[in-house]
């Protein structure tokens, strides 16, 4: 699992490198364009993901100590928090479509930073989009775990799937920990 996560670091790392390059070239523009993201929703989502990581950690604890009800309950809570995250993300995307801030034919950004804004929003959608895809996969994994746990497949001796899915879930949380300040907070001091 850790080898896979190492490849995931490089997968997201490519986008983080692209972000670093363009932010260093257009620091002011990025800071200004960043103000068009909803900081409140971004912060709420950060808290939601941290809570989901906490419940995931408790689920692993439940699996390791053979507490089946705790395991199932915490898995369901984690899934629910993941869905809340995706719901908020969906609302944000919807808003961006309405504002014509989605790069493409109908992209529209008045002011001197039109091109830089297209670059920023391209990175924004690529990074958060792939992150959201990982969330959806994670929710799928956890759903399978709930099914298996309901059938009593996990014991104190055998709980590897729970532990490994937990690693994946925490990894996706770590990605968001970096996306949050880099995308949402860089222009806040200008307000």
């Amino acid at each position: 699992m850790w080898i896979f996560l190492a490849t995931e670091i490089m997968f997201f790392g490519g986008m983080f490198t692209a972000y670093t390059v363009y932010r260093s070239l257009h620091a002011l523009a990025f800071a200004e364009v960043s103000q068009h993201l909803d900081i409140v929703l971004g912060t709420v989502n950060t808290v939601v993901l941290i809570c989901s990581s906490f419940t995931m950690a408790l689920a692993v604890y439940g699996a390791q100590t053979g507490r089946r009800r705790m395991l199932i309950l915490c898995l369901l809570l984690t899934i629910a928090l993941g869905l809340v995250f995706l719901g908020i993300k969906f609302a944000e995307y919807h808003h961006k479509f309405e504002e014509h801030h989605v790069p493409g034919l109908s992209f529209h950004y008045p002011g001197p930073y039109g091109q830089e804004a297209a670059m920023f929003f391209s990175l924004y959608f690529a990074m958060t989009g792939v992150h959201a895809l990982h969330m959806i996969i994670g929710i799928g994994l956890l759903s399978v775990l709930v099914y298996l746990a309901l059938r009593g497949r996990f014991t104190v001796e055998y709980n590897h799937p729970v532990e490994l899915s937990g690693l994946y879930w925490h990894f996706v949380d770590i990605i968001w920990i970096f996306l949050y300040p880099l995308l949402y907070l860089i222009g806040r001091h200008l307000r």
Partner: protein
Amino acid sequence: MSHKVVPISTYLVIFVILLVLTATTYWVSSLELGRWNAIVALCIAVTKALLVALYFMHVRYSHRLTQIVIAGGVFWLGIMIALTMSDYLTRSWLSVSLK
């Protein structure tokens, strides 16, 4: 793979610290600190990531080989960013146009 059972109290403490750090980074981002805005934000993010990895992901209690694999992954990321930026940041140093 470690099978050490981390007590709930540890998870709870880490959880609270993560929330406090999130509030801190939110607050600091509203201050005008020049280039330090980015540095502080990244330091807090790295701290949060370390806490999640060390305790939630049990890296602290993992086998040494696992820890080396993780460090290797992060190290390669560092190489990628460092080499890329050493190109982009030094392009303007040459005043001659290379056509």
